[in-house]
């Protein structure tokens, strides 16, 4: 007999990833600091580094259109400031409750 795993580990969790970047015309002091540190590691081929933010918004169950719409609203109101940043992507990804990919 095959024992079924507890229901909680089978319930898939949906995650929406929101990527935010400083606008191209805005100076990115953090990216500049990272860029100037790279040659110290012998990595001198990178002429520019820009640093952004990645948010992972997780819900129970599937990422529905409603969830995506709410994530977009979050991205445009709280997660980014349109004066200095662009929301470059709002993407649904599937996550498993077990914490590993590919099992559900």
């Amino acid at each position, binding site marked *: 007999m095959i024992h079924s795993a507890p229901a909680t580990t089978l319930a898939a969790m949906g995650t929406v990833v929101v990527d935010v970047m*400083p606008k191209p015309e*805005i*100076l990115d*002091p*953090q990216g*500049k*600091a990272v860029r100037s540190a790279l040659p110290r590691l012998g990595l001198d081929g990178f002429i520019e580094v820009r640093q952004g933010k990645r948010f992972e918004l997780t819900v129970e169950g599937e990422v529905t259109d409603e969830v995506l719409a709410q994530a977009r609203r979050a991205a445009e109101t*709280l*997660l980014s*400031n349109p*004066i*200095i940043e662009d929301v470059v992507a709002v993407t649904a990804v599937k996550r498993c409750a077990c914490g590993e990919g590919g099992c559900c």
Partner: protein
Amino acid sequence: MGARIGVVTFPGSLDDRDALRAVRLAGAEPVTLWHADADLHDVDAVVLPGGFSYGDYLRAGAISRFAPVMDTLVDAAKGGLPVLGVCNGFQILCESHLLPGAMIKNNHRTFICRDQVLSVENTTTAWTSAFTTGQRITIPLKNQDGQYVADERTLDELEAEGRVVFRYQDWNPNGSRRDIAGVTNVGGNVVGLMPHPEHATEPGFGPDTAKGPRAGVDGLGFFTSVLSALVR
């Protein structure tokens, strides 16, 4: 009792005590306001103090902007209530869209703390009537994210409408566009600036001046200005 001026404390506010003290030194009644309390307790004006509310997580001022007190304050400010935002308070006003533009990290990427010379460019706001146009004042500046940015169109509008209230003099300490240190809204009741007037209101505790060490009280004019605006 005279005018009641509220100072909002957020988690991570640093200069709320100094702001309350400045209000008292100017002759008004200081009122403590709390970020989680939407009630403004019948104050006649509000100061959003400096500090690092919510640790500057996400962006400086971004999380405080959604505090319960801010919903009430945004409405009251749109109705003409005088509001002064200093440093983190300026960042919160920008995040609330009560003032245009935004603040990013200083262009030299380091924290800065110094006595800064400013020129007062607009003396018609609720917070600057005690000064003369073009007057040079010295008040402390201390911040990490003090670089004022806005798109060119917004900057041109601000200049054309006389809404640049303060400009850095002698040296631009953070890369702010057009040396802007502070701006106002269309109504002139909301003013935000990065430097700290509340730290220059009492002899012995202000910037050094020709009169003596720590004798500078150029910040007091902000608070006496709003008092006379309230009397009018």
